[in-house]
Each structure stands twice: as structure tokens, then as C-alpha cells.
């Protein structure tokens, strides 16, 4: 045993750099596994804890028309308290409830208006005593204080962290809320489990703190602000722990039935905690982190396994005579296998130890990194997850076991004599003229024996050698092209969306829908210099369903005048065409609903039932189902979008006048300075209840902020890709040259110049790189598809997969540079060989 250990040590010591590179690859795999999976566990645990600590509602239920002003919009607080207490007596699983106001409104911060939501709850408990946290849907004070005891009639507020962060709001500052811009003093900044992800309305594809913010108010102050004294519009219910979704929904339905039947209240359907937007989006995000944490190490460790297989496979071929001698001397098969397996296991152990240590060291960075990217105000508690560490160690060791066992087992012959007769240099030579050379010969092209013929022959000298050489390049090119392709696909989709598809320069969003859109558009076009074209659309949220699918898709439904000249969108039809009487769906929606061209879909959208005021538009709505025929399917960046004719939408929605919530302007010579001037002019002279005027660059910037996490993940993949590529290429080229050591020595001895030798090796490696690049790009494309369509399965953004010529070229060049750099070291040692010894030596 001691001798076996000694032999293992000697073998490793002789090839330490090569073994170290494989160990490094294993280390990277284990580091990413530990870091990413642990981050997933940390985040899941932290947010579960946050939801529990802050008593996140098991379900919420709003009034039938929570945004309106009629009887179905508000419920008396005192009565509702009585009703709920009554229900709670019947249903002991109700732990607590909270009666709140949740209302969409407008904020004005530092002179700029934006959409937002106020959430209001009482600062007193049921006994009338002051409390600093509500019973349900509590929050975490990040800075400042909770509502003070005497604040219930004061205009004070707590600002949700995303909004505070975006505007850099601090306690003691003021924020104006509502149409009449009533100032509220900020007393604190809070993190809320309800708003872990900034969500906005589902019609808003880019929820950002600038477009949507949340502010918490004392209930009385909110009632006063909205003119609904003594009333609320939402019930949040906390149930006892451990109830299934079915049980929760059953209790919610019972409550609804109880309140509607006994007290004639009108309520909307309840929203279960699992369907709560923030909860659901967060699950998606951290699930993404987990999938990455599994897939990325699988790829890396798979490559490490491949590297070990190649390395040991070629090592045992080179040492087959020694194996034969050992067998002849009486070593049994098991001992020999154990010795080589010991080498691969030693590499795996080193890699696993380094990876585990690095994983533990970086643990405190992985989870906060994700959290930071997701801008979540709850910091995960970083702890070592020993089960994950143990699984990591097992995976690392398995990599060594699998990568080492098979090549060793195959190399041991039943008869030692066979091994003793074995010539490794002949083993790596097929002894045939390669097909390509035979084809060239047909065309009378015969490279010189001292010229290109040698690298060509070397390249094709054995299938195993060619395969492992090309494998290294394929790994490199595929990883690099995939990483670059990811960035490029996103960039290109964004560029296409903003530069080609969207043809506007300035976009005006209204706080409240005006009903004279064409007049506003006409006025702006006539009076604002530089506006060359103008269009407007009406955006509405809708749920699309079909008879072909049980699931519905929430979409942004855009009502527009005509596809020709519409600044908001240039259609890229995958099927069909624009027809104002039908509907155009995006590919994910059509696929999700399992529908195609000319099929019918139903849209659930709000229909106006009672008009309160026209300017701005204030009305009561009901949800109606309208059938549309699919006239077109588009593969667009916005995944969840649908287009219908404006007139049609206005008609089915029963809107008065000419409603629009967005006007799009085309500007002549749209330099940033000019856009700024026009923006200021419109703001100053044509207020029209404008919420926001954005340039395309600003909107694009918001989107990029939203995609920040994805970009950072891609950068990490790119760094891993380059590291892995260097390690694997170095190993392969080193082995290639080592195997040819006696041949190189012979060539030098018979007078081949160093220059010619370098040229031959470089030509051979260039051919390898070129061929590997072709397969690498194919694999890169498959991996890109896998990552973008399977791992990062986003229907919000439809990213068209794209690998540009630049990326193809860059992948080749980067790999080629890697090849040239890595060939330098083994080549240098080959050129400095002791020819006297090397010409007598067997291959390594």
C-alpha cells in the first residue's frame, strides 16, 4: 500500500501542472456548486422567514371595485371588523386579519410625477391601543421610525425601500400624494415581504421604482386623503400555519360567501399567498439561481471528468509497458487500477478541497450578490450548509472516480506480454493517409513532407487523439460563444426592439387616461417644434384564454390605430398580418395557449359600467370576456403582449371619447439635448395630467437595470468559460506534445529547425482550432438555446437567439490565442529537449 501511495505521489509530481489544471476545473465546479446552491437555500430560508416574521397574509380579498368610488368600492371599517370577528369565531383557523386600503394613485417626488400605490392600515389594535406593526403584512424598518403613536391623523408615511432607494429618499423629506398633491412627511423607510420585487401593475412590462412605487400611510390619513372616511377596500387574512393551498382557498371562499350572503358586500376573488406577485416572482428568481447552481457545475464538472478521462487515458497508453512490467512482476490488476485511480482521486481530492474552501470563503458573497442584484431589502443569513458541502465533496470525488476508472480499466491487458510489446507512439498513429490528403492528391495537391503534410498527418494520426484535441477546442469555443451569444442575443433583442421595432423618440405616459387623445396629439404636433410624427395607443391589462388550454395569460393589450405609421411598434410577423378587427398575439402567448392563426381567443378585460368624470377619466368597471380571432402572431421582445385595433378596444371597453394612456412622438434630429428641450417644453406648456415623459434611452436603461442579474450571471459564465478553456487547452496541447517527444527529438536531431517545428505544431493546432471551432459553435448554439430557453425561461422578454460573426470570430480568436499561449510552454520545453536522451526515450 505504501508503495502504491509512493507511486501515486511520483506520478502526480511528474505532471503536477497538468494535474493542477484539472484540479482547478474541479475546484471551480465545486465552488460554483457550493456557492450557488447554498445561496438558493439561504434565500429561500430568509424569505420564508421574512414572510413568517412579518405575518404575510395567507390570502387577501379586495372589494369588487377597489379602484372606484361606488358602493362596491369601499366597506365600512367598523362594520367589517364586526363581520370578521364573527367569521373568526366560526373559523378558528383564522389567526389574524387586517383591514387596509390599497389604492393606486400618483406621487410627486422632487417635482416629478409617477404612478404608485398607497397601502394604509390602522396604527391601533382592536382594543384601541397604539401598535407599531400591523397584525398582518408587517414590515421591516430599514431607516427612520415606524408611525409614531400620535401620527394617525398626521400626514406621515413610510416609503417602501425600492422607491426610497431610487429617489434617495430619507426620513424627514416630503412626498406629495394624490391628484391634489398633498405633502406627506417620510418617517421611515421600510422593507415589506409584499414588495420584495418591485411589481407594478401587470400591464406594465417594466416595473421599476420610477414607474411604480409603494408608500404606507396611517389608515386615517389615507381615508382623509381619498375622501373615504371610516372605510377600507381590502381584507388581509393570516391563517394558522401548515394549511394547504386548498384549505386556504376554501377558507377564503367561505369568507367571501359569508360576507356576501350575510352582509350583502361585493368582493373580488381572493388572492392566495402562492399567487401573490412578489412571492411568485421571487420564487421564480431564486429558482433560477438554483437551476444555475445545478447546471453550471454539471457542465464544469462534466468537462473536468472529460479532461481527467483524456489525461489518464493517454497517460496509461504511454505507460502501458510499465503496466505490463508491473503485471509481469506479479502486481495484480486491482493494485494497478488502484494506483491510477489513486492519481485521479488525488486530483479530485485536491480540486474538491480547493473548491470546498473557496466555496465556503465565497459563501458570504454569493447570497448577498443575488440579493443585491434583485434589490431585496432582506439580507440573507449566511451559514455553512453542511449537507450541501458533503454533497459537493461527493460530487467532486465522483468526478475523479468516473473520469479515472474507465480509461485505466481499458488499458490493462489480460496478458502482460501484450503490454510489453506495446509501442505507444505507434498506438497513437493510425498508419493511414487521411481522407483529406487523399482528396487533395486527386487534385494533384501534395503538401511537402517537410511542410504541411506533417501537421496534417499529425492531426489525423489517431481518432482518440484527434477527438481529445478537438474536444478541448469545442469546450472552449462553445463556452465562449455561448457566453458572448447570451449577451449578444440580449443586446440584439434590445437594439432591435428600440432601434428598429420602436420608432418613437419621446414617450408621454398619462397619470389618468385623457379622453381627447387625438386633440392632444394634434396640439403637440402643431405647437411643439421638431415633432414630425405622433401616434397614441391605449394600454389595458387583459387575461387571454383559449379553449385549447386551461391556463390564461396575462398580457399588456395595446389598442392602436393602424400598423402602418404606428411609432410604437414595427411588426415582425411570424404568421398572419395586422387586422384591426382581430388580435395579434406574441409567440409565447400563442404557444402558451396552444393556439395558431385564425383560432379564437377570449380576452377578459375591463368594461366601463359607470362614468364618474371624463377629464381625467374616472369610471367603474366590470370584467367582460370578448372573443377575438387571431390575425397575426409576432415573435417580439415583449413576450406578454397583444395588439388589437384601437377602435375595437375602445368599443368593447366602452370608453368615452378618444382615450389613450400613451402618446409617442417622433422628433426631427433627436439629440439628447433636443429631446430634453422638447420634454421641458411639453411639461411646461401642455401638462395634460402627464405622469412621465421618457426618452427611448431612458426606457432602455430601465430595462437594462431590470436585466442586471441576468447580465451578471452571464459575466460569471464568461469568466468560467475562459478559465476552463485555458485549463483544458493547456492540458491537451501539453499531452499532444509530450506524446510526440521522441518524434520531436528525432526531427530536431536529423536537422529540422526550431522554426519549422514551431510552424508545424502551430499549423496542427490551427487546424485543430478551426475544426474545433466549427463543432464548438454548434455546441455553443445548443448550449445558448438550453440556457436561454430552458434555464432562463422568461416569457416576459422574448430574446431571439443570436450569435454574430463577431462572436464567431472572437470565440475563434480567443481560443486561438489561448492555444498559442498554452502551446508556448510545452513547445519551449520540447525545443530544449536533451536530444541524446529524448531520441532513446519511449513516449512519456
Amino acid at each position: 500500500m505504501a508503495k502504491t501511495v509512493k507511486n501515486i505521489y511520483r506520478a502526480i509530481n511528474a505532471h503536477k501542472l497538468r494535474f493542477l489544471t484539472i484540479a482547478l476545473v474541479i475546484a471551480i465546479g465545486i465552488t460554483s456548486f457550493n456557492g450557488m446552491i447554498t445561496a438558493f437555500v439561504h434565500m429561500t430560508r430568509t424569505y420564508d422567514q421574512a414572510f413568517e416574521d412579518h405575518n404575510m397574509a395567507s390570502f387577501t380579498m379586495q372589494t369588487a371595485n377597489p379602484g372606484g368610488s361606488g358602493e362596491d368600492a369601499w366597506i365600512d371599517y367598523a362594520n367589517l371588523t364586526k363581520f370578521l370577528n364573527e367569521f373568526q369565531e366560526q373559523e378558528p383557523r383564522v389567526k389574524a386579519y387586517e383591514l387596509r386600503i390599497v389604492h393606486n394613485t400618483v406621487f410627486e417626488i422632487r417635482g416629478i410625477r409617477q404612478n404608485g400605490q398607497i397601502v394604509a392600515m390602522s396604527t391601533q389594535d382592536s382594543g384601541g391601543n397604539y401598535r407599531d406593526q400591523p397584525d398582518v403584512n408587517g414590515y421591516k424598518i430599514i431607516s427612520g421610525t415606524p408611525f409614531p403613536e400620535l401620527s394617525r391623523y398626521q400626514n406621515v408615511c413610510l416609503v417602501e425601500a425600492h422607491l426610497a432607494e431610487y429617489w434617495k429618499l430619507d426620513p424627514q423629506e416630503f412626498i406629495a400624494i394624490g391628484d391634489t398633491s398633498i405633502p406627506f412627511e417620510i418617517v421611515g423607510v421600510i422593507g415589506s415581504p409584499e414588495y420584495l420585487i418591485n411589481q407594478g401593475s401587470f400591464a406594465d412590462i417594466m416595473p421599476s421604482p420610477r414607474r411604480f412605487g409603494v408608500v404606507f400611510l396611517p389608515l386615517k390619513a389615507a381615508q382623509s386623503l381619498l375622501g373615504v372616511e371610516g372605510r377600507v377596500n381590502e381584507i388581509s387574512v393570516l391563517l394558522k400555519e401548515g394549511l394547504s393551498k386548498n384549505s386556504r382557498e376554501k377558507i377564503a371562499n367561505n369568507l367571501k360567501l359569508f360576507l356576501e350572503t350575510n352582509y350583502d358586500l361585493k368582493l373580488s376573488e381572493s388572492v392566495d399567498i402562492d399567487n401573490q406577485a412578489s412571492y411568485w416572482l421571487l420564487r421564480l428568481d431564486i429558482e433560477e439561481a438554483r437551476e444555475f447552481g445545478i447546471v453550471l457545475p454539471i457542465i464544469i464538472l462534466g468537462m473536468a471528468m472529460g479532461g481527467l478521462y483524456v489525461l489518464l487515458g493517454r497517460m496509461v497508453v504511454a505507460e502501458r509497458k510499465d503496466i505490463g512490467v508491473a503485471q509481469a512482476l506479479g502486481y495484480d490488476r486491482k493494485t494497478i487500477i488502484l494506483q491510477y485511480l489513486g492519481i485521479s482521486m488525488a486530483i479530485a481530492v485536491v480540486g474538491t478541497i480547493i473548491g470546498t474552501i473557496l466555496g465556503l470563503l465565497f459563501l458570504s458573497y454569493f447570497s448577498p450578490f443575488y440579493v443585491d442584484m434583485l434589490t431585496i431589502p432582506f439580507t440573507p443569513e449566511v451559514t455553512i450548509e453542511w449537507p450541501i458541502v458533503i454533497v459537493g465533496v461527493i460530487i467532486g470525488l465522483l468526478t475523479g472516480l468516473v473520469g479515472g476508472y474507465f480509461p485505466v480499466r481499458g488499458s490493462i491487458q489480460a496478458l502482460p506480454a501484450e503490454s510489453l510489446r506495446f509501442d505507444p507512439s505507434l498506438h497513437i498513429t493510425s498508419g493511414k493517409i487521411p481522407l483529406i490528403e487523399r482528396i487533395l492528391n486527386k487534385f494533384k495537391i501534395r503538401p511537402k513532407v517537410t511542410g504541411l503534410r506533417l501537421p496534417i498527418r499529425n492531426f489525423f494520426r489517431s481518432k482518440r487523439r484527434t477527438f481529445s484535441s478537438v474536444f478541448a477546442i469545442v469546450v472552449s469555443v462553445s463556452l465562449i460563444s455561448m457566453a458572448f451569444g447570451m449577451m449578444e442575443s440580449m443586446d440584439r433583442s434590445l437594439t432591435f426592439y428600440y432601434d428598429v421595432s420602436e420608432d418613437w423618440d419621446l414617450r408621454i405616459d398619462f397619470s389618468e387616461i385623457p379622453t381627447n387623445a387625438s386633440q392632444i396629439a394634434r396640439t403637440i404636433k402643431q405647437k411643439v417644434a421638431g415633432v414630425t410624427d405622433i401616434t397614441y395607443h391605449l394600454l389595458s391589462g387583459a387575461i387571454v384564454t383559449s379553449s385549447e388550454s386551461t391556463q390564461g395569460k396575462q398580457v399588456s393589450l395595446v389598442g392602436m390605430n393602424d400598423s402602418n405609421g404606428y411609432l410604437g411598434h414595427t411588426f415582425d410577423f411570424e404568421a398572419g398580418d395586422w387586422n384591426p378587427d382581430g388580435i395579434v398575439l406574441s409567440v409565447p402567448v400563442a404557444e402558451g395557449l396552444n393556439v395558431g392563426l385564425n383560432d379564437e381567443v377570449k380576452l377578459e378585460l375591463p368594461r366601463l359600467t359607470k362614468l364618474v368624470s371624463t377629464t381625467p377619466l374616472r369610471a367603474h368597471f366590470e370584467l367582460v370576456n370578448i372573443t377575438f380571432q387571431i390575425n397575426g402572431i409576432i415573435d417580439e421582445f415583449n413576450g406578454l403582449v397583444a395588439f388589437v385595433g384601437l377602435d375595437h378596444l375602445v368599443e368593447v371597453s366602452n370608453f368615452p371619447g378618444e382615450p389613450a394612456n400613451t402618446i409617442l412622438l417622433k422628433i426631427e434630429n433627436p439629440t439628447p439635448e433636443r429631446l430634453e428641450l422638447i420634454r421641458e417644453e411639453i411639461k411646461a406648456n401642455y401638462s395634460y395630467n402627464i405622469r412621465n415623459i421618457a426618452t427611448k434611452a431612458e426606457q432602455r436603461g430601465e430595462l437594462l437595470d431590470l436585466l442586471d442579474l441576468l447580465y451578471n450571471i452571464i459575466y460569471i459564465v464568461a469568466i468560467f468559460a475562459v478559465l476552463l478553456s485555458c485549463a483544458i487547452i493547456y492540458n491537451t496541447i501539453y499531452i499532444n506534445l509530450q506524446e510526440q517527444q521522441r518524434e520531436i527529438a528525432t526531427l530536431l536531431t536529423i536537422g529540422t529547425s526550431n522554426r519549422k517545428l514551431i510552424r508545424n505544431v502551430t499549423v496542427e493546432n490551427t487546424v485543430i482550432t478551426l475544426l474545433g471551432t466549427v463543432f464548438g459553435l454548434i455546441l455553443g448554439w445548443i448550449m445558448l438555446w438550453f440556457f436561454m430557453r430552458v434555464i432562463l425561461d422568461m416569457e416576459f422578454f422574448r430574446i431571439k437567439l443570436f450569435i454574430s460573426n463577431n462572436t464567431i470570430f472572437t470565440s475563434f480568436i480567443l481560443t486561438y490565442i489561448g492555444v498559442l499561449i498554452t502551446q508556448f510552454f510545452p513547445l519551449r520545453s520540447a525545443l530544449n529537449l536533451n536530444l541524446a536522451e529524448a531520441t532513446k526515450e519511449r513516449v512519456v
Partner: protein
Amino acid sequence: MSLEGIVTLENVNRVYHMGDHEIHALKDISLSLETGKLVVVLGPSGSGKTTLLNVLGAIDKCDGKITVNDLEITRLGKKQLTKYRRKKCGFIFQFFNLLPVYNALENVEYAIELATNLSRKEVTERATEYLRKVGLFEKRFHFPSQLSGGEQQRVAAARAMAKSPELLLCDEPTGELSVNEGKKVLTVIQNMVKERSDVLTILVTHNQKIAAIGDTIVRLRSGEVDSIEEQTPIPAEQLSW
């Protein structure tokens, strides 16, 4: 005495350092060898015979002075040494050292193409001619893996001679071969020596019997020249060992 056509070694020393130990592989060797002859360097293992061959072939360094037909190779730089090996030396190695990716003809062509400015056609013609001489014309398109050890060594001999070297250096050329194959290889070498009076052939062996094919026998012992004997060579076919 004129140095034309003569290989001389003057006070040649080669010391290997093995850790703290110094091994004197060659001790103050001085020799003068004439072209057109087959010189057999004989000696037991560790006597320095291969080292002597290596320093003559400029694949190992040494102290002292070695001159090959007026060219003092011990003063040459790396590039000039490469040129020297390319143009003036032919090597026959113990382990044949053919390029496994090339067939017999291509192996010979490689050396000719490297050393001469002949056209492609002429290179092929000459390579074919030499393979015919060593009896391998029929197997000229065979790869090393398809040849026996003796055949490989005969290809190596053709490769070494086809470029018309001034020095033919043979290091235990029969060491890996059977008697019959060895005799064939030695016959090839002997025939080449007869044909080419401008070539000095040095054959290193530990086999006393093989020494009988040489015109001169240089006996080495512990890195020193023990004796130099002139003799009438006997044909290799008549050898047995």
C-alpha cells in the same frame, strides 16, 4: 598531416552531473578518424561509446575540440549545429525513430528534402533508389507500424544515407533486432560504406562479434580510449551472435 576528409577529436571531455556526483562519460578523448571507413566503437555499458557518438552528432555538448572536415563543430551556435546535423550527419538510432505518420518513402524523403535543394521529383527518385538499395522498394508505401523492426531499421538506414551525409552515426543499430534482422541491417550499412568513400561511418555496439564488420575498432573503457585497432572487415552476412 592534412585534415581533409578527417574527423578529429582533441581532448574531448563530457561530465554529467547527477546530484552531487560527477560522471566522466568521456575523459580527454583525442582521435583522428578517416572518411570512407566503418569505425566500430566498442565497449561495455557505461564506457562512453554512445556519448562519443552523441557529441560527434552534435546532440550532446562537450569540452574540447571536434572537427569534421575542417568544420569545428564545438564552436558552432545552435542554428549552425542544426544545419550541421541536417547536412552532414546521418543517424541510425537503436529504436529506429521513424516518423510514424509517414510511410517508408516519406520518411526517407523527409531527410532528403530537408538536406538538399532537389526538386520534389528528384527527392522521390532518390528516396526510392535508397529504399531499393535496402531491399524495401516493395514496401515503400508501408507505414512503420506495418514493418518489422529490421525493416524499420533499414528504412532508417536509407533515411540516414539518402541525404549524402559526411558522417553516418549508428547507435546500437541491431540492439532491438533479431540476429537475422540485425545481419540484414549491418549488411546494408556495410554496403553503403563501400559505396561512399566520402562518408565516415561510426557504429557503436557492445557486441564484440559485430565489431568484426568494421575497418577500425575503437575500444572504450570508462570514458577513455583503451585501444584503436585496424582490421580487415568481414561481411556482415557471415556474422553470427
